[in-house]
């Protein structure tokens, strides 16, 4: 009644949409780095959007489905021989064996009915710095066994129209993967933007930044020309958010990602438009990004567009599950 980890890959964790409401005690929401891909994976196996999936990172795991399991893999492309972006009825004994991601950095493996992992503070997400949530508060390793919460949910496969040979002929669109690099990410000027000198302001928008190797779920370090310090006194520690771009004394900007700190003492040069955070999360170390300035109105429009594309994909998937 379970999924067994034969090889964990670079970083495989249980993630859902995160735990909200605790930022005032220093706990970030966390959750999936690419919530769009997670939403698609859940929909493809008939799960509600709040269900948890496995987030796999850059080098995928090898796992075996020990019972018949309805599975969907969405997000980054991995050379795995396993069909992506569609529901797949994996028969008992089927292996998912992923090598390196060929496009994007993170994919989500959702199983119908979800994993039998207890929620902590309202979420099944693994919070690695605090060692709680998900599977024992840690990344999965060889020999771990995750039980399915509802093994009978694999039966949903029979509700699909036009299913054949354990899968379907259609696929969900990859909404967050880069077609080419550098990817374009929109940002809103940060509180301290005006304090940076003109050279640093220009460099921030003119540079093709690279995601540095020491990037993780907490933040992406961006390699490029070091930025100067803002004018004036040292700033008072203040708030941050998902997508804040901080500039520490080293001048190397850090984009705050899912497991970010909730406050910080470094100047914030920009905040990434919420619609673009998931696309940035799909860059592996070495991946290239450049930033374009946008207004709050444009950011809201980008978000509405992204939401509309996701909703349209979700409606399409739901339609396929309506009984013949």
């Amino acid at each position, binding site marked *: 009644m379970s999924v067994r980890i034969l090889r964990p890959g670079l970083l495989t964790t249980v993630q859902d949409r995160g735990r909200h409401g*605790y930022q005032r005690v220093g706990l970030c929401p966390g959750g999936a780095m690419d919530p769009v891909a997670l939403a698609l994976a859940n929909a493809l196996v008939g799960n509600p959007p709040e269900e948890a999936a496995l987030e796999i990172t850059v080098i995928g795991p090898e796992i075996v489905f020990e019972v018949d399991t309805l599975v969907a893999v969405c997000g980054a492309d991995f050379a795995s021989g396993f069909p992506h972006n569609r529901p797949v009825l994996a028969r008992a004994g089927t292996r998912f064996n992923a090598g390196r991601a060929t496009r994007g950095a993170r994919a989500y493996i959702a199983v119908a009915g979800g994993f039998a992992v207890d929620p902590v503070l309202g979420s099944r997400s693994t919070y690695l710095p605090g060692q709680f949530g998900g599977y024992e508060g840690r990344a999965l390793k060889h020999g771990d066994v995750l039980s399915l919460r509802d093994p009978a949910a694999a039966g949903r496969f029979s509700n699909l129209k036009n299913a054949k040979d354990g899968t379907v002929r259609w696929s969900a669109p990859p909404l967050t993967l880069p077609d080419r690099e550098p990817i374009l990410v929109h940002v809103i000027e940060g509180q301290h933007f005006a304090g940076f000198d003109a050279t640093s302001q220009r460099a921030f928008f003119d540079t093709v930044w690279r995601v540095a190797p020491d990037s993780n779920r907490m933040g992406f370090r961006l390699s490029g020309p070091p930025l100067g310090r803002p004018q004036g006194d040292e700033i008072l520690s203040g708030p941050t958010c998902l997508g804040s771009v901080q500039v520490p004394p080293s001048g190397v900007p850090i984009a705050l990602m899912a497991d970010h700190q909730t406050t910080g003492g470094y100047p914030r040069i920009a*905040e990434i438009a919420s619609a673009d955070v998931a696309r940035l999360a799909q860059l592996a170390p070495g991946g290239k990004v450049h930033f374009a300035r946008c207004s709050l109105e444009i950011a809201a429009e980008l978000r509405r567009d992204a939401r509309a594309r996701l909703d349209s994909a979700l409606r399409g998937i739901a339609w396929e599950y309506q009984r013949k």
Partner: protein
Amino acid sequence: MGVVPLGDSAAYVEFCTTLDLEVNSVVQRLALAILRREVPWVVDVVPTLGGVALHFDPDDAEFPGNPLEAALELVNDSLKQALAAKEEPGREVELPVCYEPEFALDLVEVAKLTDLAPEGVASRHAAGEYRVLMMGFAPGHAYMGGLDPKLAVPRRASPRAVVPAGSVAIANEQTVVYPYAISGGWNVIGRTPRVLFDAKRARPSLLWPGDRVRFRAITRSEFLELQKKS
């Protein structure tokens, strides 16, 4: 007061850019008043040293659309009520602390810098009445104001790679307690046996913004006794 965007899904209402304990007390009241409104599109209300960060759910149907307008509306609707509130936000919390050398890694250094005896540093720290001004850096990590000005020393020149969990530390005019074994640059003068953050507790954090905190000096054997219980 100024309102700045914090991306398109949050805004920061700033009252001051240097630390001011009286302003922070208003910040705490305001944050509480906004929280109590239970607005469905407000997902997090985060009091900071000099303002309040408001995190929104832009996908909520009722969300006004512009985070700056949303924040201003919330503050205007809550500020009067916050200022009129007689009740103090936060609770009284007492933290037992052992200031003995085994745990007080920087006590001798702080004593030198402040021209006090190590015991004098400990007793002045334990005599203070503190207020949680902001939480951040790690879950359960509280920045507390109210430190005796005589104890104001700068951060260590080189941060420690690992500060033991429960370490009580000071820098500038604040004191903190490290909830986990993490890196940090504050001067460690003692350790509490209490668990600052436990996700399995219904109220996961021991300290919350606005809490009034006192430290009680304990001996090494009391420390070990309390550690066993927690």
